[in-house]
């Protein structure tokens, strides 16, 4: 090891059993998403928020456990979450700008 300490090279990773459980959870959440699409719940006002929450949960699980962001250096977390926040803000801003202009174009 050099004086730098190689911070990215001495971190913890989940065990293969944890990886397996993460995969099972991801599969189950995907199953729930598809299942509720075929139920009367899809006409409920809670359908879209539920799907967004489930999707965000899968996103966070993959990023934290499979991409090891939970275990890695905080600089990597900043490099990912910073642009991600900008990206989400951009989506929100564009939707606020354009979503109420309901006119067909093509």
């Amino acid at each position, binding site marked *: 090891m050099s004086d730098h300490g190689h911070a990215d090279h001495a971190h913890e990773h989940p065990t293969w059993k944890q990886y397996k459980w993460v995969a099972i959870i991801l599969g189950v959440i995907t199953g729930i998403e598809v299942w509720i699409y075929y139920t009367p719940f899809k006409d409920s006002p809670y359908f879209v928020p539920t799907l967004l929450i489930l*999707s965000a949960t899968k996103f966070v699980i993959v990023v934290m456990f499979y991409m090891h962001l939970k275990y890695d250096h905080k600089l990597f977390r900043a490099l990912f979450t910073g642009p991600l926040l900008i990206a989400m803000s951009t989506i929100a801003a564009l*939707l606020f700008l354009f979503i109420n202009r309901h006119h067909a174009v093509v």
Partner: protein
Amino acid sequence: MATAVAHEPHEHAHYTTTGLDHRKIAIWAFIGSECMLFASLISTYLIYKGRSIVGPFPHEAWTSPDGHVFKPILNIPVTSQSTFVLLMSSLAMVLALAAVENRNKPKPARITLGYRILSSSRLWLGMTALMGATFLGYQAFEFTSFVHEGLTIRTNLFGSSFFTLTGFHGAHVTVGVLWLLTLLAIDFKRGLTPKDALIVDICALYWHFVDVVWIAIFTLVYLIK
């Protein structure tokens, strides 16, 4: 319990003043920039959603002026299968990385079939590439069936934004599969060792990112009307 992974120093490691390898900093910065690329594509899709005046439409049937009836074009069961395949490819990818990282660890006294399977980086890299290729096969099937049903990139706003968004994602998956096959070739040629864990890790980060982008696309494009 999480396991501590202490990578062996790389022969040609490039460390910065932060103590972090600049290749890993670069891939995270690249992934950050990719977030913004896909955000722009997803925004475009969402803004144009429901604004096409001619079909086919994603979730609703449409009758053309000449009386031809078009069914809703999205095939949720098929896309659900491809989504599941891509999610499971991420599991294979982390197992490939773990196999490379743990290669030099002391072997157990009794080597079981399970141990052999889990410690085979070739198997998991191959599985990941195969599942990525399967996903691309699903996408090729989907695109072909859409074209046969009358939806092309020039048909309407939905077609333009849909093919652009999912096409960009498919291109990323293609790059990922080629990257995985390159690693697999290296593994067959000289064997990947813990010294190579970082290059596998960088590929894994890219692959998982492609996976999380699809998690968003699947919900926003396919499931939400």
